[in-house]
């Protein structure tokens, strides 16, 4: 099912991610991400915190089609997202992904039954399951999104050299695999958080002038 994995991971998949920076826009404005090395540190931090947590939730969602269990995972996502602004973003991106996933796998009962407004990692795991992918693949999708979205956003905002960014992403790739593995094999749902990303999420939400939705 590698082709289905690539379809879901493709930045061209129409699920709304292109308009979100994953905190990179706020980090650029705060002066904490200014160049390729500082972006690499930002991505690394993101991967091991919210990336790990999202991957654990997505993997768990990929293991079940039971609406009650998915609702529990939705609540678990809510509890792991302290920022109200980022909770709203997660629900909105969940809606957008659900629309695309239902178009891709229209016969999947689990996707059909998922309430609109379910948190993004839960929809991502359900979409992966509907596409015939394993929980490990769902975790890989989540860590890929956790890193590639903000990387592209920073590239646009700072006019970075795309080849230097490729070098960063290739260097991080083995770590993405490790985090996905850890998330998919965890006996308890991960709850790693990044307080600064929560603060960025809240702060960014109040801005009048912004290029990205979050």
């Amino acid at each position: 099912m590698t082709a289905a994995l690539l379809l879901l991971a493709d930045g061209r998949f129409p699920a709304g991610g292109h308009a979100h920076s994953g905190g990179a826009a706020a980090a650029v404005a705060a002066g904490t991400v200014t160049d390729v090395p500082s972006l690499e540190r930002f991505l690394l931090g993101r991967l091991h915190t919210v990336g790990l947590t999202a991957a654990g939730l997505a993997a768990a969602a990929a293991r079940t089609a039971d609406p009650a269990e998915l609702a529990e995972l939705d609540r678990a996502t809510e509890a792991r997202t302290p920022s109200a602004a980022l909770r709203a973003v997660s629900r909105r991106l969940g809606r957008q992904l659900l629309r695309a996933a239902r178009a891709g796998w229209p016969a999947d009962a689990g996707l059909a039954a998922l309430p609109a407004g379910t948190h993004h990692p839960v929809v991502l795991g359900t979409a992966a399951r509907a596409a015939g992918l394993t929980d490990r693949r769902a975790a890989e999708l989540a860590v890929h999104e956790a890193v590639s979205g903000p990387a592209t956003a920073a590239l646009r905002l700072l006019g970075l050299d795309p080849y230097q960014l490729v070098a960063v992403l290739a260097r991080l790739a083995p770590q993405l695999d490790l985090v996905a593995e850890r998330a998919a094999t965890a006996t308890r749902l991960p709850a790693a958080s990044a307080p600064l990303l929560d603060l960025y999420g809240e702060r960014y939400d109040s801005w009048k002038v912004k290029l990205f939705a979050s």
Partner: protein
Amino acid sequence: MHRDHIADESGAPVVSAAPPGPRRALRIGLGGPVGSGKTATVAALCRALRAELSLGVVTNDIYTTEDAEFLLRHAVLAPERITAVATGCCPHTAIRDDISANLEAVEELEAKAGPLDLVLVESGGDNLTATFSRGLVDAQIFVIDVAGGDKIPRKGGPGVTSADLLVINKTDLAELVGADLAVMARDATAQRGERPFVFTSLAAPDGVAPVTAWVRERLAGWG
């Protein structure tokens, strides 16, 4: 209501953006370069049509809610009828390749202020290649202006050649910028064949009238 709850006979969800049934609002997209007069056209259309139609507007600013605020400030519609979408530096992506945020916005407007007759989706200012997906809008208007140079119709591009209506705005500035309207008309016809174009000057009283007339025709055909 959100159409993604609708199921077909087999129980599969229907997610197509095609009209699901009797009445959803006609959706018209407005694209074109920065400063050509998209927001002014939207505002003028709202003023011309709001007495007889239930309207909604979705704006896609490049980096702010300025266009939405312009419409609010000029009170062309009630606030609950206007919403803004952020596009992450890529206004064309949000109207063409990944329309999910705009579809959400349109459906939320219809749920909040509906039922609506007409939703105008205004793109962020972009280049001559930016066109709307048919999954997002039923018809599209491309707005260029005389002051941008009288060679723009000749340059073509998907916006100029394929939009359902080409609006060439700011004709009142033609003399000041040395633009030849006859050249623009000739090139627009050459690029567009049978597809219509109109000249407008929104500075004139009811200057939007040619666009309003075209929108009314689309509405008449919408049922």
